[in-house]
């Protein structure tokens, strides 16, 4: 039977219908709401989908009783995935807090030569003596303007039917504007033709959008393709997050739910469409000015966007359906954008080293540089690439979500009230919070700093053990006061009410060991030494906000490389921007892919040994 679920937020009410017996989480998903994150994909494990609900609801389950305190339960807090609707009910929508999402990419330094753009073509006038079609006159004019793309015989531009229709009216003037697409190796196409803008009209711009679809966050950049200027940026949490926090959960949702693939495809397609329209509106652009959208993302995200089943990526040997460059038009992907906007799905390497890493390699020019570089993108999966113009080796390593604040007792995202930096002042610990608010927990960079500080102070030994009370007292009373017995395990206080527990340290140990061992194996397999690595690019949100000294102190980055670190920001997004802007950069993605090879670590006994070695925190410098 259908019941009514009411969402209440700051005086506004939204009513959504929901079948009795469904969970609050499923009801919210069905209604397209993104109220909560289901980090464990609705399995009742993570406790992150908590919300306040009342009305005719199922009794709190055993899982809820273990994940929520008695006070929270009494206050109406429930887990959305475990609470079932039995009649009319209401949810108090929490005040939204804005996450700090990284949207800065490295500066891009090259001449714009976009693969898709509007070109003004001067047509020779038609005469009675020489009767040639408008199409032929336009193709001839285009060949004059783009000699390199039209050099070889048989490479004359193809003209789409839609473009011919536009040409009919426009060609009565001596010039036309043509939307031309030139992809290396794929010839030249004319996708649309329009009359030249009149004097009282601003001339038609060529705009592109570079997109990075991350498992957690989605970022879109609007670019003026004539000069490379970024006209605007939109970012947000990935709307698919209600289906789970990591790629395995998202894949699982396509297997378990009959419509799981389509639901996730629609969410990302509409999210990108909304972002694009907002960007175009803010830049006061006409919709036909949007000529291209280049999309980078991990392999699973690109499968979900394209509506291609990603199921096989979740089991060994993890074969993706596709990794190559795919070029199409907006309607083919269901994007509600101009029909003549091109979409470039950027190439990846394997199921777990996707277009996000390959476009990062291309954007940073790693495969063209004789200097050896290391690219680190630390998320739930740590993606690593090492190499130079002689070749690139890449691997992926299961770091777990600890550095994103998940699975850590006081962990939280980068929102107001999160401790973002921790440092040592004399023999005490000091910290700062985002927004200078009262500390509520630790975000990724804060977790890393806190760990490094406690190791440095000797409160955590090399094997990751928090000293017992007697040992801590021997270090001095001030340090001893940072240690306290928790309910089941010792804790180290970062500030009042915020701590790192023994279990947290163990989680972090696993994460740093996975990355540390991954880096060591890449360096070994490429026959290099740590000293030969000339640049370390840190990509992604965590890499950009973290303190490099802390990363070295806990063994995440090899000692000796701290002065070679370059914060690369959203290098995946930068690669997508570059692909819209330059044919050479789009081609570089393909070249980076061709010059890269992938090492599967999970089947390597050498990796398992190195992993255990890296569980130990490095000795003091």
């Amino acid at each position, binding site marked *: 039977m259908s019941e009514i679920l009411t969402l209440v937020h700051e005086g506004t009410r939204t009513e959504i219908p929901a079948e009795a017996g469904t969970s609050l989480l499923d009801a919210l998903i069905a209604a397209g709401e993104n109220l909560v994150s289901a980090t464990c994909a609705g399995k009742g494990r993570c406790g992150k989908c908590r919300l306040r609900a009342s009305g005719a609801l199922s009794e709190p389950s055993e899982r809820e009783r273990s994940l929520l305190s008695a006070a929270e339960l009494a206050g109406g807090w429930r887990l959305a995935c475990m609470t079932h609707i039995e009649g009319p009910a209401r949810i108090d929508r929490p005040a939204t807090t804005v996450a700090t999402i990284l949207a800065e990419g490295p500066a891009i330094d090259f001449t714009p030569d976009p693969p898709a753009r509007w070109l003004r073509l001067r047509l020779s006038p038609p005469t009675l003596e020489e009767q040639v079609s408008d199409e032929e006159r336009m193709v001839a004019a285009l060949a004059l303007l783009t000699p390199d793309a039209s050099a070889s015989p048989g490479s004359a531009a193809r003209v789409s039917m839609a473009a011919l229709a536009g040409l009919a009216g426009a060609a009565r003037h001596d010039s036309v504007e043509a939307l031309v697409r030139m992809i290396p190796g794929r010839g030249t196409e004319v996708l649309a033709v329009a009359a030249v803008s009149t004097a009282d009209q601003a001339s038609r711009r060529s705009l592109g959008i570079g997109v990075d679809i991350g498992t957690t966050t989605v970022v879109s950049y609007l670019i003026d393709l004539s000069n490379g200027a970024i006209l605007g940026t939109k970012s947000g949490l990935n709307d698919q997050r209600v289906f789970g926090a990591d790629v*395995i959960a998202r*894949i*699982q949702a396509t*297997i378990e739910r009959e419509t799981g693939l389509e639901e996730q495809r629609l969410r990302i397609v509409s999210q990108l469409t909304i972002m694009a329209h907002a960007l175009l509106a803010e830049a006061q652009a006409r919709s036909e000015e949007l000529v291209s959208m280049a999309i980078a993302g991990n392999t699973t995200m690109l499968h979900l966007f394209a509506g291609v089943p990603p*199921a096989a990526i*979740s*089991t*060994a*040997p993890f074969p993706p359906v596709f990794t190559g460059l795919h070029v199409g038009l907006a309607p083919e992907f269901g994007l509600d954008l101009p029909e003549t906007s091109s979409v470039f799905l950027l190439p990846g390497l394997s199921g777990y080293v996707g277009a996000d890493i390959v476009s990062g390699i291309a954007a940073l020019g790693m495969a063209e540089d004789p200097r050896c570089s290391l690219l680190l993108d630390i998320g739930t999966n740590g993606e690593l690439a090492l190499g130079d113009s002689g070749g690139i080796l890449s691997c992926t390593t299961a770091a777990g979500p600890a550095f994103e604040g998940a699975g850590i007792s006081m962990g939280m995202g980068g929102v107001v009230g999160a401790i973002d930096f921790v440092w040592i002042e004399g023999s005490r610990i000091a910290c700062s919070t985002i927004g200078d608010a009262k500390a509520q927990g630790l975000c990724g960079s804060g977790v890393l700093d806190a760990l490094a500080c406690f190791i440095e102070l000797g409160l955590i030994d090399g*094997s*990751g*053990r928090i000293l017992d009370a007697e040992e801590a007292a021997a270090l001095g009373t001030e340090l001893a006061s940072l240690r306290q017995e928790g309910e*089941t*395990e010792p804790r180290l206080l970062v500030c009042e009410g915020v701590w790192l527990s*023994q*279990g947290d340290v*163990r*989680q972090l*140990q*696993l994460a740093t*060991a996975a990355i540390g061992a991954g880096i060591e194996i890449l360096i070994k397999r490429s026959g290099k030494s740590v000293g030969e690595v000339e640049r370390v690019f840190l990509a992604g949100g965590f890499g950009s906000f973290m303190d490099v000294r802390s990363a070295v102190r806990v063994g995440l980055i090899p000692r000796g490389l701290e002065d070679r670190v370059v914060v690369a920001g959203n290098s995946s997004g930068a690669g997508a921007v570059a692909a819209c802007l330059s044919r050479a950069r789009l081609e570089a993605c393909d070249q980076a892919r061709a010059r890269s090879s992938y090492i*599967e670590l*999970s*089947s390597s006994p050498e990796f*398992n040994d190195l*992993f*255990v070695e890296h*569980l*130990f925190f490095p000795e003091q410098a």
Partner: protein
Amino acid sequence: MSTLEDISALLQKGKANDVKANVEKAIAEGLSARTILEEGLMAGMNIIGGKFKRNEVYVPEVLIAARAMNAGLVPLKPLLVSSGVKATGIVVLGTVKGDLHDIGKNLVKMMMEGKGLEVHDIGVDATSDKFVAAAKEFNADVVACSALLTTTMNEMKSVVEALRNAGIRDKVTIMVGGAPVTDTFCKSIGADLYSPDAASAAEAAVAACQKSA
């Protein structure tokens, strides 16, 4: 402290080199290989296993202790073989097809070896045929399957079926484990035992072997 107590204490701290040195010292002192194994190495591993079960220690410490145990076994193994110490039981252990997760399975292996079981590790991404072949070859008492992914755990059912088709279903105890696995799942696929953690798995395997002996 006696050398045996030292071995146990050092193993718990994960001091691989010191464990090895003390095992050699114990051998020189004339202690039997069996005594060193049971009252030194296994005693230490059992304490770690118990703490692991009670969430007092975590995966990294077990891995570190297991590394120390392996170091201690190096000088001991030839003596164990020559003195003919008999295993408590024989286990074939692997991670199922499509799944490359190694660490959880290795923890189980360590805990089982710490209980004196003879463990044949057939590795990761192991097909059901591989489980059957190994069970036959080693005349296993227990076949233990690990899966860490919701997408691969159904492969455990294939292992149960393959053992049935090979006609050795009733000769072995089938154990299953891994993060997404539950007791309900274990029953639904017709396996025998589910264990929530590596230490319980080792205890359950010992119990199963004693029953079948």
